């Protein structure tokens, strides 16, 4: 059981690494949100794997549901923000959002 936890944690690290790369390297705002989504997947996998390893799966699932619900609220707000910005700038390029630049 402990080795399965370590295997899961290895993949959690890969998922969070891929998400961080996406956040740091991509310029498309929708792609940035996809990066956030991938990091959230890593976090939920970590919670369930830890719950399974500690034989406390019910608590882990309750926390995963909380994470998913908050994730939905964040993604909905961020996508609405992206559409709103897109109407003004006619672009999805994050490097063109320079209106607040000092």
């Amino acid at each position, binding site marked *: 059981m402990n*080795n399965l936890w370590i295997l899961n944690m*290895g*993949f959690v690290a890969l998922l969070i690494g*891929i998400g961080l790369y996406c956040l740091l390297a991509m310029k498309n705002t929708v792609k940035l949100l996809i990066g956030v989504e991938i990091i959230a*997947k890593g976090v939920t996998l970590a919670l369930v794997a830890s719950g399974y390893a500690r034989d406390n799966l*019910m608590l882990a699932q*309750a926390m995963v549901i909380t994470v*998913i619900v908050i994730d939905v609220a964040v993604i909905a707000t961020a996508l609405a923000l*992206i559409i709103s910005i897109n109407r003004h700038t006619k672009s999805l390029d994050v490097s063109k959002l320079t209106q607040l630049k000092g």
Partner: protein
Amino acid sequence: MHLFLLIGLVAFSIMAVLSRDLLKSAISLAVASIFLALVFFHLGAVYAGVFELSVVAGLITVLFITAIALTRNDGEVAESKRHRIVFPLFFLALAVLDILVMRKLLGQIPAIQGAGSGTFSQVLWNQRTFDLVGQVGAIFAGVLAVLALFRHDSPKGDSHE
């Protein structure tokens, strides 16, 4: 079986990041969610699996596809071509580091037995009640934010600045 599901999850996540077409990215993300839900089912986390499948693979994908459709004409962003070279190198370095660290940890962490915590409904409604209040607050805040962002300005132009 478990290993194949995890490899599928990571592979589709990489496809979601590297795909040039946003629609393909969104669909790859949905497939990655399906793999994650299967991992949850395999670990016995049925409720989390159902939530992942219905909310993340379903609702969030619909939200992504709607947003992509609404911004379709302006969706082309010239990403750097260096990703084709940089990402494999980054991923290889990350995987090697990951394997080294995890192999070092193998057998080092003692197994801890947690106390069984009753049924799912007992945990969710009795132990994590405050989380539910937070969830309601988060959904309410999200709805208000979306309403505020899609609010139409009044025709006289006297909206608050």
